[in-house]
């Protein structure tokens, strides 16, 4: 018997893997991928809870979060390309111009 809780626990596991990936990776492209994984986990819990309460609202939120994710990826990868063009590296440890 698969209940809504199974989906919520799975979604929290995927979210945590995304958080750990953001913390340990040094490559900004992989960090973006981990952020996408976290967004997907949130979407999964939206759909599961929408199904649990018999409403379509959860799927509406997923549609909007998808559009936001697409916009975020387009702008973020543009920023990465611009950084690579000016600094010749994308190691996240060496991009510290705004730190001081």
């Amino acid at each position, binding site marked *: 018997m698969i209940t809504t809780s199974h989906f919520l626990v799975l979604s929290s596991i995927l979210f945590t893997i995304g958080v750990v990936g953001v913390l340990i990776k040094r490559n900004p492209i992989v960090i973006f*991928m981990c952020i996408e994984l976290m967004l997907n986990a949130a979407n999964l819990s939206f759909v599961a809870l929408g199904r*649990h309460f018999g409403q379509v609202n959860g799927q509406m939120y997923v549609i909007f979060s998808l559009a936001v994710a697409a916009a975020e990826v387009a702008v973020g990868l543009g920023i990465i390309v611009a950084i690579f063009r000016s600094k010749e590296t994308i190691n996240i440890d060496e991009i510290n111009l705004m730190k001081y």
Partner: protein
Amino acid sequence: MISPILFWIFAVLAVVSALFMVATPNPVRSALGLVMTFMCVAVFYVMLSAQFIAAVQVIVYAGAIMVLFLFVIMLLNLGAPEGLKERGLLQPPIAITLGISFIIALLASNSLVSLQGKGAPPEMYKPQGTTEGVGLALFAQNQPWVLPFEMTSFLLLVAVIGAIIMAKRKI
């Protein structure tokens, strides 16, 4: 009714490919692991009777977004595994410890594991995740989704302009 065997197969596959995405040093392999996770999540959407979202997941995430990722990886020539050395010996253990404590805190909160059975009655579970159902709900008179929908189009326009300005050498 969700088949338990199918659920467990795809749950294990999703978690393993997500872990592979984080663990591998090669960005292209990370992208392939992420595509696998997206496909598994699409299967879960079908299980939860959200067919339209599942199709959009495959088309937008596994199609468009991942192609964009691979394109940037190829463009910046990061495909080589030794392209970026992972430095810092202290950071991964701390991050993994924090992640484990985070998931323990999430699961110990007890609201995820034992969700209170205030679900809708069974007759509410009509097939509403089809394209027709989602479209009718999105543009219904008594639903507040039309304004966010228009805002989304504006957001995408801003993203297009921002991406062009970021990628352009001289404006």
